[in-house]
């Protein structure tokens, strides 16, 4: 009997832990962490042999920082390939650089060079490939937390793209493989261009002035607009009511 209780307890604990983790993941707030924080000024080593700090780099042009490791058998390569493809159509968003930075201390400049060659970007001046010894502090400053999985000999990590403006502040983060539209918002943010965002309708939001349709991208007038007209309308009714009342000696 005691064994069954213990077993049930362990199963339930596991279930609730999973549920809690799923809830944390589903909140989607990871992208909001560290926004408008200053990114750690890490010393970077580039393929060319040049050494510069992150602050020096972004003071010239805003940066899109992609954190990867070259031995990744998972998301890193598809992530970089999609980023490269999407950016081919994003030349009209102002100037910016893409810094591909390894978070794996094992990666060398040669590894990064090889990655650049594989992506056919070794001669593209907009793309920079680098390593750093300050990766832990940098990871902390951008809210990136890769964990080492010794069984697979791989890092368990997000595909993270961080937007950093010329002043070295994190303006926006994108996690996962994202579409061109999201990338456009990220590029706007590093160039200090305002990007509108809309709250989606919810069941507990009854009196919106406008209802945004994410499919059409259009706003439709909502019940809230009627509320705005209430005070003047009631005032008019009061004025006419009193006027009528005093004329007919009812007040």
């Amino acid at each position: 009997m005691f064994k069954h209780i213990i077993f049930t307890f362990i199963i339930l604990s596991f279930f609730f832990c999973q549920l809690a983790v799923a809830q944390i993941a589903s909140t989607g707030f990871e992208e909001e962490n560290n926004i408008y924080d200053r990114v750690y000024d890490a010393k970077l080593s580039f393929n060319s042999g040049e050494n510069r700090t992150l602050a020096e780099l972004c003071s010239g042009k805003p940066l899109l920082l992609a954190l990867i490791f070259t031995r990744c058998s998972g998301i890193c390569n598809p992530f970089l390939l999609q980023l490269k493809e999407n950016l081919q159509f994003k030349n009209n968003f102002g100037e910016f650089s893409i810094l591909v930075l390894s978070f794996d201390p094992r990666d060398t400049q040669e590894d990064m060079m090889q990655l650049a060659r594989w992506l056919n970007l070794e001669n593209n001046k907009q793309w920079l490939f680098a390593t750093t010894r300050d990766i832990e502090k940098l990871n902390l400053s951008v809210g990136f937390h890769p964990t080492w999985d010794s069984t697979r000999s791989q890092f368990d990590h997000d595909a993270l793209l961080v937007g950093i403006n010329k002043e070295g502040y994190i303006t926006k983060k994108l996690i996962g493989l994202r579409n061109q539209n999201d990338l456009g918002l990220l590029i706007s943010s590093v160039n200090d261009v305002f990007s509108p965002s809309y709250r989606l309708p919810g069941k507990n939001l009854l009196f919106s002035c406008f209802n945004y349709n994410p499919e059409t991208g259009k706003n439709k007038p909502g019940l809230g607009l009627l509320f705005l007209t209430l005070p003047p309308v009631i005032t008019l009714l009061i004025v006419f009511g009193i006027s009528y009342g005093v004329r007919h000696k009812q007040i």
Partner: protein
Amino acid sequence: MESIKLRKITSLWIITVLALFIANIVLGIVMRLNQGEIIHEQPATFYAHMTTHGLTQIGIWFVAGMAGINYLMERYLKTSYLANVLAMIFTVIGILMLWISTYIGNFHAGWTFLYPLPLKVMWAKWGTPLFLSSILVMGIGWLIWAVSLMTQILKKYPLSKALAWQHFRKNPAIQTPPFILISMITLIGIIACLLGAVLLLAMYAAEYFSNGNFVNDALLMKNLTYFFGHTIANEMLYLGLAIIYELFPEVGGRPKWKTTWYVALAWNCTLVFILTAFFHHLYMDFVQPVGFQIIGQIASYMASLPAASVTIFSVLVAVYRTPIKWSLTNLLFFIGVAGWVIGGLGAVIDVTISNNFILHNTLWVPAHFHTYNALGNVLFSLAFFHWFSIQFSSKGNFEKLTKLKLTLLLIGGIGFLLAFYIGGAESIPRRYSNYPAEFPMAAPLAIAAAVFATIYLVAILIFFFQISKRCLNILFSPSSY
């Protein structure tokens, strides 16, 4: 003629308003000293001062205007003493609740209490309901007062006559005094914005007590907040203008001003435009359709122009090459109109959309509204207070210290306001308790502002002692006086 009871309650209003005004100026000076790094307060304390200062200021100058028109309206019709007393009771209770919520409950969401700040509780849990209740209590008192005054006007003047529509025709049979026209127009606007406040507070209460089952629309709440806040801040100026139309020619020994077709038209237009001008507060809200923003700009221009141009024209005509009996009352009215116009110009500059991109939420904003209040509306009310207090005093030199008081008011007021304007032109943001190093001019300007505000305070203290002394005599005089 007005009753003795009305004299007494008006005296009580005047003493209350002036006492609270002095306390409020001190709060303002403390805030500027903190921004100037002369004293060091916790940010929460600074914002508690800001919340108290803003709302008390709106409250006291609104009731000052209402007390003024209530008193003068007795020349034309009988007003309700009960409504006046109720408003006093509700105002005092409301102000006490407000100060308790900010200084004991530490509520500090700012006088505009923009959604969702009051619901993000960073103070005593009871602070939010007490703060919102304080506005409700004051709002109900003022609503009763405004509806009561409007009812009395409508008992004597039919609606069309109260709005002076007969003046659109030639040779109207009945004259609507400008004082009645402006009071009526203003009272309608006041009732509308107070109803807006009631709706706003109901929405807050719904969310507060719903345990997350109901969430407000931020855009609706902001629209309602400014429908109430912007409108009442402007309507209280119009209360002061009604008093000017009534007293300025009389005190100067000139014939009373009459309503003409253009005066009637200007004020009727003002009623419409003032209720839609608040949209200019939402320029930065991209979800608001562009059409609303354009209405905001046009209505802001139109709201200021008719009333302002007609009033300026009337005042200038009254004094230009005309033998006029100048007194402290008249001088305060005249300087007040100038302050109102300068502040109004500052406002029109800010409501122009292209300018607002630069001036939005900079010190330009407090610059303009402090101009038409500290050197506009306050002077209108001080003029009325002075005039009222000397009506029932038989002895003494009533023009004593006039030059000193006006000099201190002007030097203090202009210096204090210049610090705001220069700060605005330098893009120094408003509502900062402490300025970062990126704004090197902010702290010196704040210190200068505190010094000039202290000079202004000295002038107000002299006014307070002189006027309050006479008002206390009225208040404690025997009923047969």
